[in-house]
């Protein structure tokens, strides 16, 4: 009985001590986080709240007029351009996610292919990351000139063709994200223990079988996770559109972010632009939920 009471009182003191300790820490922690929290609340949280508030107003004759959900209704039912931009954004996100497939292939090759030292493997590995470090202003200019080259007789620049341009832009987005994805894939393939493959080899499995029955199941979750991450990144596509086509010809290559910028600077329609931004945010939110589920699948 006595022992039990002593234990209880010890536990109580410990909890009390923990409370004091945590409270004492609170001041220290707040002090450390203060610079970040101030900027974070002021420049990251407030603008999003204000964006939501802004999206229920409309600028008519330089006046902000409350219109309720009219902006959203118009955006989804009447706006032809918005429909194009949503399709384009989904296309870019899809291509970005699709690049994971190629990345898996490239990572597999870079990992398993054994070549003798004087080889271009290292150079290749280094060069696939180049689009990640060079500004899209430079890249866009270069690709514009590339597609203007006369490849065949009567060659028409596909970036000025409204049917081909979105696919070219999507492919270039895929091109630029492939290097990053491949390096990441390569790293995760390297974590698969060698013994798995050795055991399969003894059992007489072929390379393709090893890939399908050992590699694929092990990287499946990471693959899905990375695909969603890539899609989220591609949802805010902006620089690429600005430099490759400027959204044109017409609106054929415009993304949601680009359309939003046009609404701000050319139509001066802030409320409507905020509506587009909030819609973009909601799409990303839905994708994030998918990603959240995938994280838990991966770690549990």
């Amino acid at each position, binding site marked *: 009985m006595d022992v039990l009471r002593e234990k209880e009182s010890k536990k109580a003191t410990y909890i009390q001590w923990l409370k004091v300790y945590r409270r004492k820490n609170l001041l220290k922690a707040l002090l450390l986080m203060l610079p970040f929290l101030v*900027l974070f609340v002021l420049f990251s949280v407030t603008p999003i709240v204000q964006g939501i508030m802004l999206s229920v107003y409309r600028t008519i004759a330089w006046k902000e007029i409350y219109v309720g959900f009219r902006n959203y209704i118009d955006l989804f039912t009447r706006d032809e351009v918005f429909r194009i931009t949503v399709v384009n954004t989904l296309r870019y996100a899809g291509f970005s996610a699709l690049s994971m497939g190629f990345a898996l292939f490239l990572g597999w090759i870079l990992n398993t292919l054994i070549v003798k030292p004087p080889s271009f493997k290292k150079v290749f590995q280094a060069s696939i990351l180049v*689009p990640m470090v060079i500004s899209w202003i430079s890249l866009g200019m270069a690709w514009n000139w590339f597609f203007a*080259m006369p490849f065949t007789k009567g060659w028409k620049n596909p970036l000025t063709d409204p049917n081909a341009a979105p696919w070219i832009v999507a492919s270039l987005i895929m091109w630029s994200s492939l290097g990053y994805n491949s390096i990441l894939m390569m790293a995760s393939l390297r974590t698969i223990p060698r013994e798995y493959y050795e055991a399969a080899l003894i059992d007489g499995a072929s390379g393709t079988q090893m890939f399908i029955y050992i590699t694929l199941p092990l990287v499946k979750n990471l693959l899905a996770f990375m695909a969603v991450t890539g899609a989220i990144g591609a949802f805010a596509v902006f620089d690429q559109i600005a430099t490759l086509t400027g959204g044109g010809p017409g609106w054929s290559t415009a993304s949601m972010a680009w359309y939003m910028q046009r609404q701000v600077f050319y139509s001066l329609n802030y409320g409507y632009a905020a509506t587009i931004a909030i819609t973009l945010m909601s799409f990303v939110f839905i994708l994030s939920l998918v990603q959240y589920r995938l994280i838990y699948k991966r770690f549990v």
Partner: protein
Amino acid sequence: MVFELRKKIKTFLVNFVADIGFIIGVIVYIIPFLILLAASLGANVMAGRFIPQQPRFDGYINIFTHPGFSLWVLNSIIFTVTVTAGSIVISTLAGYALSRLDFPGKGIIFWFILGIMMIPGIVAYLPLYIMLAKMKILGTYIALLIPPMSSPYNVFMLKQAFDAIPRDYEEAALIDGAGTFTIMFRIHLPIIRPVLTTLILFNIVWNWNNFGWPLFIATRTTLWNLPLGIWNLTWSYTVNFWNLAAGAVILATPPLILYIIAMEYYLRGIAVTGLKK
């Protein structure tokens, strides 16, 4: 004997085919830079010619004598240095508190930061533009440089880095009577130095290439950075293509050199922590 010869031939063939594939891959990935380089020396790339008939270097001279250009370069340097330094310092402090200190409300704050991190930055640009205009600081360096220092992404990355350090280190120091700040600067920061270096390297590239933020906020041409300035030059009809290409080469070269020098850091940064903007 025959078997060995066969093996040798096989290795050679594998090497040969692989190298052809790799060379094609390398060309696909560096062709934009080659195009810009050729064009800046006066080659008429749009006609399909990569080698200039007579190399000219006046593109580089002309772009530097352009009235805005040196200012854009200066602005780019200011933007890169200030935002990177500010954001890293602030994020290190916040990341440390979130990782190493135990205090009430920590979980909520962290999840909130994580949630905001998911939202693309461009969503906030318009409200920020209006807000900064109301604060009457739009068109100043303060408006351009301070808001991007709030980077939930950096905080998250640094918290992860601090989380990876075992508790034993600080317990030993605690027994010796060291305070929080001593432990932080003397023990934890040196341990995460590689992560910190990698993060700084990535931040430098992101900030140097930042285009969307200045496009919204740099309302005066004297605040433009290099990407924005060159992008605006592409719409002008008075600038020759080799001048433009020279500008694009100058824009692409610093991050490229940094990448070549510190390639190990970039590769490891992706492989280990999955750094990406």
